[in-house]
Structures are given as C-alpha cells and as structure tokens.
C-alpha cells in the first residue's frame, strides 16, 4: 500500500476536495428519510397541503443535489484514478525495461507481464472505487447508525446486532471462495492446455488415429473443471440468500420490538417506517464495505507486486576506472580467464580467454548448452563475470556506461524479436537512421530482394513476433537491424541457421566486402557459418576445447572434425 500512497500524493488536494463534495452528497441522501419521517409525523397532522408540497419539494431538491454532487465527485475521482494509473503504469513499464538480466530471470517474464497488466489494473480499480465508495459507505453507515440511535436508541441497537453477522458472512465465504476460484482457474488452464496441445498436434493425433484417446484425455480435464466450478459456485451462491435473510431479520426484529414500545408510548409508527428506510441504507453500506474489504486484500497483493519491481535496486552499476583500470592493447575484444555461473553454483563458463583484433572475425561453435550464448551475454554485460575480465578496446566492460557500450554494438540474437510494425521500423528500431541506411543494411543482409517484393516494400506490416514471414526472412531482417547503424562490433548469435547455403554464403561475402572494418562475432551450430573466421572457439560444457582457424582445428580438435564431417553442408536448403 505504500506504493499506492506515494503515487496518490500529488493528487491529495484534489482528492480531499472530492471527498468533501462526496460528503455533502452523502449527507443530502441521509436527509431524505428524515424528511420522510417528518412528513408522516408532523406535516400530515397539520392538514396543510402546502406543507406537504413544500417538504416533498425539499426531498426532490435534496435528491437532485445528491445526484449532481455525486456526479461531480465521481468525475473528480475518475480524473485522479486516470492520472494515478497512467503514472504508475508508466514508471512500472520503464522500471521493468531497466531491470538487469539477472533480475528479469528472477521475476520471470510472464510474472512481469502480469504485473504491468493485471496488477496495475487491480490497483487502479481500487483507487477509483475507494474514492467513490470509500466515503459514501462509511458515512451512510455511521450517519445512519447515529441518526437511528438519536431517533430510538433501543430499536437501533436491535438492528445493529445484525450487522456483524452480515460482515462475518461475507468475509468468511469470500475467504473460502478465493482458493476455490484459484482451483477453478487451474482447472481452466488444464482444459485449455489439452485443447492447445491437440490443436497444435492435430496431425500426429490423426496420423495415429488417437481421437478416442484424446476424447478421454479431454473428458478428464473437462469433468474436473465442471466439478470445481460447481463446488465454488455452490459455496459462493450462499452469500446473497444469507445476507438478504439477515437484513430481513433486522426488519422483523425492529417491528416486533416496536410493537410493545409503541404500546408503551416510547416510540411511534412513523419512526418505525423511517427506521426501515435507514436500515436498508445501512445494510447496503455494510455490503459495500465488505466488498471493499475483499477488493482491498486483492489490490494490496497487487500493490506489493508492483512495489517489488519499482523498488528493485539498480544492478550492474558502472564501476570506477580507478579500480578496474584500462590496459593498453591492440585487441578490440578480449576475454581474460573469465568464469561465470548463473546460479552461483556450477560454472556455466570456465576460464575463457581469447583476444580479437580490430576488424577481425571470431566464430564460436559447440553443442546446445555449451555456453556460446552465455559468452555473448557477458560481452554485452547482461550479467557480470564471476571472475576474470571482459574488455573492449582495453576497457573493462564494467566501467563503460551503458549508452557507450551499446552504441557501438550491433547484435542479432537467437530467437530475437520482431514486432507488429513495418519492416522498415523493425530494422530501424527507434534509432535515428535514414531510409538509405536501412536499405543498405537490408541489401548486405540479403533481405532487400524479398522486402522489395512485398507490395508495400519496406512499409510491409509484420505481425506480432513476425509470424507472417518465414524463418529465413525473419533472420535476415534481424541481421539488417544489427548492422544498420554500422556498429564497430557485430554479433550474430545463431542468427543465420535458417538460411540456405547459398544465401548464407552471399551474406558472408557481403559482410566481408561492405563491413571490412567491423569486428565480427558469429555464433553457430554449422561449421560452414564459421569456417571463414580468423579465429574459431569450440566450446563444450563451458570450456574451450579447441581454438584456432578452420584448418588448424580440423587437425587438432576431434570434436570439431566430427561435427564438420557430419554436417557436410549443414542446412542444405532454407
């Protein structure tokens, strides 16, 4: 809740004003039953029609005032909620994007997503509702109780006795209901999973004629879902009947007690009628308060989850050069006995050392899980090394400010991301690049031909995740993005695996010709993608098991030779 308070603070004056208006509105509503009782008690006996008309008009006047004031207050509340949630969502999104890789791993992407979507919505909803109901309900409740106490303390105590029961009922049943609905949600997930699996695997299912088996599998999850829904429903639907019964019980109590009180002249029938009016209001307020309580628990949990992200400490600060002094070296990229572990237990990379001159090319090859991508992540400083040191032009990457570090790098990652926008914008990626630069990059990346073949050319809209282009086309767009800004270091992390031989070869030729000064790092599974590199690292389980150029490795490294022989061409066609 602390998070919410911080973000509400700028709007506190407006909120106070809104509260005041709301209080006036609520008081106007509270006056209505008083007038009603007054008409019945005092006015009618005067036998004066004008008096009745006057007091009736007063009732309408107060109703209208309540209506107008409520609308004004609601609108003010809406504005506060609007600004509040725009602000918090903006900060949350920005904080999320600035999390370090290790922090993102800890939170996990789906969880971060739901914090931005569901949790901000919950908090927003709460801020909006608390302003509307948070004033009205307590005033109706407290005001109603005060007035009834004043009118007839005895009767009102009888009535008040019902209220705790209402609260307890709502509280306990909702408490019981929440886990039940969690279980329903889980059952829904289970059901959806089977449908998704079967739609994805329809060819396998049909090929094996497993329709009956799948019917059975689906029936299990479907029945479980129906069962859970029924269980939750049966419990939750008890709330309304019980509450109605309790409220009606209060009315019955008031009537029964008032009979003897009227007989003893301690009370009068007119008061009882007004009493019933108040009672309806009070119980409504009670229900609202219980609902708000449930809402509060929900949004407090959400606020906590948002706060966790907002309060995440900045990781990976830029370190002082004094402590990690730069060295004078010819090398552009240099790893100096680097070891690293994701979880701090087993090393994922161990004792990696190599150095690469300006304009040189490096190939990294190895099985899945051998640490190729981890090495790249360290170069990009997504994580900090465990021991050793990564240098670019002699400077420790930990001492280079982010903008400077990334300003000079171009990278196309494995499973990199394309988004719903034009091809041109996907290549430009928010940078200040001219159309000519984009086209040049696409040409080098062997992408210009197919892009130009689109009816809208570079204005062709990609769908989310680029599902409307083939795997090979996707990779070429990503490579074009990587080299568009003419970086001094270009990293291609397994990003030409879907290209056919010819295209891959053309790409390498073009890179050599057009970007001769660029230092190139290629990560690949295919020997053919790296064999032209000046230096090739063969990784296995986080260690370098071979280093040198293609010919040298063929002679000295058994694994490399095996891979090379087996591939004899790797991907033959796209």
């Amino acid at each position, binding site marked *: 809740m602390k998070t919410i308070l911080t973000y509400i603070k700028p709007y506190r004056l407006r909120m106070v004003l809104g509260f005041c208006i709301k209080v006036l509105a609520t008081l106007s509503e509270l006056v209505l039953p008083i007038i009603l009782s007054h008409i019945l008690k005092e006015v009618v006996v005067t036998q004066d029609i004008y008096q009745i008309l006057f007091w009736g008009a007063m009732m*309408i006047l107060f109703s209208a005032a309540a209506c107008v004031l409520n609308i004004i207050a609601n609108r003010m509340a809406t504005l506060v909620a609007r600004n509040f949630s725009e602000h918090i969502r903006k900060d949350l999104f920005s904080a999320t994007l600035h999390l370090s890789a290790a922090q993102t791993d800890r939170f996990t992407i789906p969880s971060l997503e739901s914090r931005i979507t569901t949790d901000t919505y919950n908090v927003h909803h709460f801020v909006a509702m608390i302003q509307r109901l948070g004033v009205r309900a307590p005033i109706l409740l407290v005001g109603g109780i005060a007035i009834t106490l004043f009118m007839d303390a005895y009767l009102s105590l009888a009535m008040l006795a019902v209220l705790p029961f209402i609260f307890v009922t709502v509280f306990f049943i909702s408490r019981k209901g929440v886990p039940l609905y969690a279980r329903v949600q889980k059952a829904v997930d289970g059901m959806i999973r089977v449908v998704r699996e079967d739609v994805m695997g329809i060819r396998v299912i049909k090929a094996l004629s497993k329709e009956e088996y799948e019917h059975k599998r689906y029936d299990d999850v479907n029945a479980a879902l129906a069962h859970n829904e029924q269980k939750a429903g049966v419990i939750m639907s008890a709330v309304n009947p019980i509450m109605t019964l309790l409220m009606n019980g209060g009315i019955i109590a008031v009537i029964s007690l008032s009979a003897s009180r009227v007989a003893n002249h301690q009370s009068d029938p007119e008061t009882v009628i007004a009493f019933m009016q108040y009672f309806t209001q009070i119980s409504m307020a009670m229900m609202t308060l219980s609902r708000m309580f449930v809402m509060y628990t929900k949004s407090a949990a959400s606020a906590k989850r948002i706060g966790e992200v907002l309060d995440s400490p900045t990781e990976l600060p830029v370190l002082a050069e004094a402590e990690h002094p730069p060295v004078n070296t010819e090398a552009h990229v240099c790893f100096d006995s680097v070891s690293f572990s994701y979880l701090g237990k087993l090393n994922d990379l161990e004792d990696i050392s190599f150095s690469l001159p300006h304009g040189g090319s490096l190939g990294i090859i190895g099985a899945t899980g051998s640490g190729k991508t981890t090495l790249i992540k360290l170069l990009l400083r997504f994580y900090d090394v465990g021991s050793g040191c990564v240098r670019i032009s002699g400077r420790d990457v930990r001492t280079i400010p982010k903008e400077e570090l990334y300003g000079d790098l171009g990278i196309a990652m494995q499973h990199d991301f394309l988004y719903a926008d034009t091809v041109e914008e996907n290549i430009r990626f928010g940078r200040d690049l001219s159309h000519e630069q984009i086209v040049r990059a696409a040409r080098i990346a062997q992408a210009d031909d197919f892009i130009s073949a689109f009816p809208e050319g570079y204005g062709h809209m990609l769908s989310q995740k680029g599902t409307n282009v083939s795997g090979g086309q996707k990779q070429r767009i990503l490579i074009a993005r990587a080299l568009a800004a003419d970086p001094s270091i270009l990293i291609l992390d397994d990003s030409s695996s879907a290209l056919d*031989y010819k295209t891959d070869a053309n790409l390498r030729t073009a890179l050599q010709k057009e970007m001769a000064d660029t230092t190139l790092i290629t990560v690949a599974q295919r020997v053919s993608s790296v064999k032209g590199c000046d230096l090739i690292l063969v990784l296995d389980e986080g260690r370098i098991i071979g280093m040198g150029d293609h010919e040298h490795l063929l002679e000295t490294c058994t694994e490399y030779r095996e891979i090379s022989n087996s591939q004899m061409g790797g991907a033959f066609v796209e």
Partner: protein
Amino acid sequence: MNRGGFGGGPRANNPNRNAPGQKLDKRTARSVFLRLSGYVLRQWPLFLLAVAFTLTSNQLSLMGPEFSGNALDAIAAEGGVDFPTVWENVRWMILCYVASAVLSYALAVIMILLTRRIVYGMRRQLFEKLTTLPVSYFDTHAVGDIISRISYDIDTVNSSLSHDLVQVMSSVYAVVGSFLFMLRISPPMILVFAVTLPISIVFTRYRSKKVRPLFHKRSHKLGELNGYAEEMLSGCRTIQAYGKEEVICGRFNARNKDAMDAYYNAEYYGATLGPSINFINNLSISLIMIFGGILYMFSQSGAVAATSMFFITLGGVSKFVQYSRKFSGPINEFANIMHEFQSAFSAAERVFRILDEEPELKDAPDAKAPESVRGDVTFTDVHFGYSPEKEILHGVSVTADAGKTVAVVGPTGAGKTTIINLLMRFYDPNSGSIRIDGQEIRSLPRRDLRAAFTMVLQDTWLFHGTIRENIVYGREDATDEEIRAAAKAAKIDSYIMHLPEGYDTLLSDDGVNISKGQRQLITIARAFLSKAPMLILDEATSNVDSRTEIKIQEAMADLMRGRTCFVIAHRLSTIQNADCILVLQDGRITEQGNHEQLLSLGGFYSTLYHSQFQ
C-alpha cells in the same frame, strides 16, 4: 497455429471472428436462441424446478412487505397496538423470509447443476467435433481463436444462462408482482410512475447509445496497451542491447495515455449512471410521499371514505414505498440484462459455427482395410492447391518402391510438405491419383491408411503427461522392455534414467527443463515403437545438435531400413544416401534421380551442393 513443421500450408486468417458483444442480425439471433433453448430444455426436469423455485421465492419476497405493512398498521391501530395481529404478521414475515432464503439458495444450486451439465456437454461436444475436423480447419484458424471459443465463449454462455436467465424471470415477476400489489394498495398513486418511468426509459437509451460504446472503446484500448506491453517485454533483452529503453517507453506511454483517455472518457459519462439511477428512485419516493401524504391526510380527516380507492393507511404508504423499490430496481437493470444476453448469443453463435463445420469426408462406403501393406507408393499427375485459386502442385508424378528412400529437396514454398499432407490424406488432391500397393488411397479407410505410416516431424509434439505415456502414444500395447529399447535406440534412455522419476517424469511447462533436442529424441523414440511399413521424416533432426545427431545417425538408419521413407531434410548426409532425390520447384518436379545423377545433371541440385564449398 501449427506453422512449425508444415511451412507449406495456407496462411491463418479468420475473418469470421465477431467482436464480443457484437449484435447478430435478427434471424441468426432467433436461430441461436432456439438452439440454445434446446440445450436448456434437454434438461427439462431441472429447468422446470428452477422456474417453479424462481416464481415461489419471488412471490414470497413480494409478500414480505405486505406483512410488514400489516404489522405496522396494527401497531398504529386506533385504539392502541393490536398485538395479536402484529405477532401473526411477524410470524408470517419470518416464515416468508426464511422460506424465501432457502428457496433462493436452492434455486442457485439448481441453476449451477443445470448449467454445469449444459456447459460440460457443450465443451465435450465442441472438443469431439474438433477432432473430426479436417486438418485444413486448423491450418486456417488460429489456435487462440479456437481456445477462446471453447473457454471464454462457453463461459459467457454459462454465466448468462446461470445468472441472467434467473434474473430475467425474477425481474419480470417482481415488476409485474409489485405493480399488482401497488395497484391493490392505491391505484391513484401508480400515477407517480407515469412521471418516473419515462425518465428511466430515456436514461436507459442514453446509456446504451452513448455510454456503452465508450466502454467498449475503453476495454479495447486497454487490451491494446496490454498487448503492446507483453510484446515489448518479450524483446526486453534486445531493447536493452540497443539501448532503446527510452524510445520504447515513449511509445508505451503514448498508448498508455490513449488507454487512460479512453477510460476517462467512458467513466466521465459512466459516472452519471449510479447517481442518476439513485435520483430516479429517490424522485419516485419523494413523489410517493407527496402524493401519499396528501391522500393519507384526507383519509385521516375522513374526506375520503375508507372504501374509496383514494383511501390509504400509514402502513399502506410504507408498503407502497417498499414495493416501488422492487418495481424500479429491475426496470433500471433491464437494459443491462438484455445486453448480457446479446453477448451470450454472439458467443453461442461462435460455438455453433464450429459445431456446424464440415467434418472430414467419411470413408468411402466400400472402403476396405488392406490385408498387409508392402509400401509401394505412386503419385500420378497430382494437382493440388490449398485454395481453389492457387494451385501449389502442378502435376506431380512419383514412384517409390517398397523399402526405398525418397528425399524431397526444394526452396521454401515449393510444396515439399504438401506432398506429405496428401500422402496422409490430411488433404485430398484436386486431380490425379495417389496409390499404395496399387490401391487408390481414397478407397482405404483413413485409420488403416494412416496406421501404415509413422512420422517424425520438425515440430516436436509432446503432451502434458509422463515420458512413458508420450513414448507409447503410438502403440499402447508396447511393453516396458520395448519402450526402453526404443528410447535406447533414440539415445535418450540414459538421460531419462538420470531423472529422479525416470520414465514417470511428468512433461509439463513448468516442470523438468527438457531441451528442444531432447523433446525431439522422445518423438523419435515414439517412432521406433511403431511397426508401420512406411516412414515420414520431416526435418526430423533439425532440433538435435550435431554431436547428438552423429550418435543417432545409426539408429535413424535402423529406423529407415526395410521401410519406404519419405524424407524432407536439410542435412546433406541424409539426402545424398537416398535412392531417389526429387527436386521440387514451384510445384513441379524439375529434377529426379540419385545423388550422382543429379550432380552430373548440373541443375539446381548441383548448384546448391557446390555452394557449400564456396
């Protein structure tokens, strides 16, 4: 969408998707209504019970104010409080309210049972229908869309049936009932509603015309914003690597502002709803007080005879106020309920649309299972296109003798995967014929045709279940020894044995972290179990890293031995040993022969082959 392994299929598009809440035309709405009623009426005993309970419990809660009014009249009686009458009415009130509470709870439970049966049945029907649909349906409909119909749409129907149905019944009853009660108490006072009812109606129209579209826009914009956030988060590494956090935040903020403006706009008008409804209710009560007060005054003074319709007691006024609440409440809610019904109808319509899809063609009536399949396959002048306008294969003829390996090579979109789609009868050719052992495949029962093949696809399909269940999927009668032998052959046995649960390890999204390559090995193990005489490999080792591939090459050779194989591969080692290589370009076979023959031909194949040595 099943795009992964079958690049040759048509693109996903679903122009038929209705936006939720969209209005149906009258005739469709009518037929949907009738069909939906069918589902309800099939549960007629529960439904009748529900109707009876609804009416009774409403009648009881309507009678409540009657008794409390009577009690008040007895309290206010002329010569002091009339205790016996008071107690009698209090007893009736207790009875009434308790019975009403019990009944309404019973009603809720009945409705839950009723809808549970309907929804369970509907989901089951929908799913079973899905499995009879041709593969083309899944190639042209997004998986998200299908899922949203089986979950979200059916849920909408469910909540509408369980909640709105009762609501409508009791609203109508409450409105009519309280109207009659008020009429009995004081006909002239009904005139009050001649003032407030038109206001209600005008207000309701305003709400549905002006406010509801704004709320639609609001949810739409919020959905867009959330979609954008999710999309960008999936690329947060890349955004950081390019240092473009601020640019992306800027774009997010623009959408955020848009969404919040839409929210504010909707709520700005929406903020009038609650207070206005309250005002209309309070106005009715004020008018009742004025009018009722005057009538009561005359009744007291004797100006109106006790038998006249203008006569009213104090309890009468009180009852009238209470009934007026019961009367105007549902009327204000009515527009809302109608709207709910509308979205339920369009949801139901989307569900029915799947139920009405054409299933896979039935097997020919004279289809006969072959005794045994040797595995001679011939394609004769096969023409095919996924849509009538666009032919993909233009007259393909192939002959594959039993036990031989045929490799298909060609650029993306040439129709490699299409050949397999036709072979398995996921699609039927437009013209030409495909024969197995000389028999046209359309004259075979699908089940037997498909059982003659075993497939390993690039798209490694495993389901949520144990490793064992996933391996035996192809042949449920396999013994434990056979399962392990298959896993050993696929070089995955030792990995599985290292897992704490071994073969009983649950493959789930959040459970064991099993790599793509290992998943593929499991599907290869599944294929090893099969005894089918023909084998289809569609880039079967594309996810396996090179060193493991070397290890399973021998096993793959075993798998292929003695079987007719169709191979789509991009690794040369697999292709060059094939008995016959087909080069497929633009839907035609342009080159055909073994590796040496094609190289000496000097065409597409040899260009490709030589490009790797450049």
